[in-house]
């Protein structure tokens, strides 16, 4: 078992078969994550390096644990402590890490396409852990895993994504992935945060939050950065939560079986009220657990699924 590609750069070009394979493999991995003995030797002798040019806690820790649970050696490189600050190019940094024996480099970068540039220039596998406002494929895979776990299939699922679509790599990857797997996507956002042509990626842009979430199986809200106010993208936190935040009043008429998702970290009371985040429809913590399982699956499949 192996992925068709050397790298995991995004879901736009990933085949449905590979997505299926990753989600199926993640199911087995989840038994390890949730078991008492969180240790297998699938990646014994392998080296996984996380190369993060942006701050991150959850994604970096998730990758690190995924690698460690399978016996790999891990090193975390963050931009502040790297020679990038001294003017080294991304390609040279990647080649240096590869020369030291990296099998897989997990990269997060503020610029779209940085993982693609790295992947083209080294032989080691590259996993995109978020590139600018482009893609965040492992987040979308864990989101899809969570949806499938809950509903049994992705085919025919109706998913609403609410919030800052413009700056969201999570939204883009989910739109690409969900379309491939037969789900449909509706969007709602402040009009200032809708990127042009987003519907052509395979999503319906709605004119109200009610229209977006009605009839949906999954409602995913996205993180909004308060600093965006400074760029005149929305007026205030309270206005944002009033028109674009999720509250029990807005969601009470929804189906009994619907679930609420959020990629985290969540601004309580802004994107969703605390009662929803901590309520029974919320699967945000399950998403985090599944994230480790999905990342284990990816690491396993990229190293050729060599095993036991």
């Amino acid at each position, binding site marked *: 078992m192996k992925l068709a590609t050397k790298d995991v750069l995004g879901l736009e070009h990933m085949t449905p078969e590979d997505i299926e394979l990753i989600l199926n493999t993640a199911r087995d991995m989840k038994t390890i994550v949730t078991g008492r003995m969180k240790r297998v030797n699938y990646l014994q002798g392998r080296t996984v390096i996380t190369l993060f040019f942006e701050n991150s806690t959850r994604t970096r820790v998730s990758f690190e644990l995924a690698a460690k649970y399978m016996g790999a050696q891990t090193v975390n490189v963050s931009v502040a402590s790297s020679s990038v600050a001294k003017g080294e190019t991304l390609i040279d940094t990647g080649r240096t890490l590869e020369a030291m024996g990296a099998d897989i480099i997990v990269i997060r970068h503020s610029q*779209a396409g940085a993982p693609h540039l790295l992947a083209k220039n080294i032989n080691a596998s590259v996993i995109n852990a978020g590139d600018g406002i482009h893609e965040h494929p492992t987040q979308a895979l864990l989101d899809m895993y969570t949806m499938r776990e809950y509903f049994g299939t992705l085919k025919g699922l109706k998913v609403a994504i609410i919030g800052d679509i413009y700056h969201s790599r999570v939204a883009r990857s989910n739109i690409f992935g969900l379309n491939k797997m037969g789900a449909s996507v509706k969007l709602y956002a402040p009009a200032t945060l809708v990127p042009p042509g987003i519907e052509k990626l395979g999503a319906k842009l709605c004119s109200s939050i009610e229209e977006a979430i009605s009839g949906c199986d999954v409602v995913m809200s996205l993180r909004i950065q308060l600093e965006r106010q400074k760029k005149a993208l929305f007026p205030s936190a309270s206005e944002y939560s009033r028109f674009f935040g999720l509250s029990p009043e807005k969601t009470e008429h929804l189906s009994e079986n619907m679930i609420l998702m959020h990629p985290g970290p969540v601004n309580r009371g802004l994107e969703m009220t605390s009662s929803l985040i901590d309520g029974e429809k919320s699967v945000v913590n399950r998403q985090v657990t599944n994230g480790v399982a999905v990342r284990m699956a990816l690491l396993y499949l990229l190293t050729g699924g060599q095993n036991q």
Partner: protein
Amino acid sequence: MSILIKNATVVNGSGIVNGVDIYIENRKIKEIKKNLQAEADRVIDATGLYVLPGLVDAHCHLRDPGFEYKEDIASGSRSAAKGGFTSIACMPNTNPVADNPAVVTYIIEKARKEALVNVYPIGAITKGQKGEELAEIGSMKEAGIVAVSDDGRPVMKSSVMKKALIYAGQFNLPVISHCEDLDLAEEGSMNEGFMSTKLGLRGIPSAAESAMVARDVILSRYTGIPVHIAHVSTKESVEIIRNAKKNGIKVTCESCPHYFTLTEEACEDYDTNAKMNPPLRTREDVEAIIEGLKDGTIDIIATDHAPHHSDEKNVEFENAPNGIVGFETALPLSFTRLVETKVLTLPELVDKLSAKPAKILNLKKGLIDINEDADLIIVDFDTEYTIDVSKFASKSKNSPFNGYKVKGMNMMTIAGGKIVYEACRD
């Protein structure tokens, strides 16, 4: 040195004359007629080929002084000669900036010693191209500039642009405006649209260009001073300029081969060779540029030759510098995209690549006629060939056109009565 070109098909902006001979001596065209009998140091049989005025480029970057690792005056002029350009006007965004007579004199002197073609410096509009204080426009004119421009940067302050027009107008110097509202462009690195959304790159809205084109047209009308708009890339810019011309406003403009050949889709896979400013736009914009070239709204074709080292381009898309090399692809791309498709006749194309840019820059160039400067090129418009960037004479190879099949290979360039480039026939 004397040259006799036999059996030439001569293409000027005014039309085509078949089967004439051209005699060149002492830097000038001495005679043009059928069955011309003359002794010459070199006799060239141009049967089946076209003889054009040496092309005139109103917009290029020679990177000298300051960025000689990208290009210098000698290599840039070799690239121009190979592409068929015998007169080139170079933008002032060098290091130091050509905003004073000393830098202008350096360029002119170096070109006199090393350049194969005529090099005409363009001076900065403002000191350091900072858009604040006027550069020494009068002194630079004395030193030899043919126009002023802050190209690469817009003159953001409208009050400064207004005064620049008035002051440059007094010295009878064309003002070439790089139109880009930086406030609207924000941190964009490609056209804002479907492709920027798909690639997750911040976009530059077409309005960033068009809004400033509108401003400059209005300032030109208000001051009565002509303005020349550089590298027009959007549909709205074409509409604004078309309208302005109808209203008698003295605006001229240029576009570049990439803006009528490529769309934003060339940025797919983060190809930094498709990164330029203004950015490649949409199909609709490309069609509007072609329409503007056809109806005369767009006066001339310029290269915006902008060489960059491969190390600078082999980086993250947003970190890569803007621009592509242009001398060696401009003529074949223009011919293939505009004449083969019957958008323009061959004389119309030649006009936009020679006589018209010469007129905008007040140069007595761009015409094949008796007593004119002997700047001319001999072109094969019939044989298809494949663009190969590794063969470029430019120091830099940053072009998105590698592998393109085109027609219109320049076979020979004569500048000032001397053969400065000759294609080796394999």
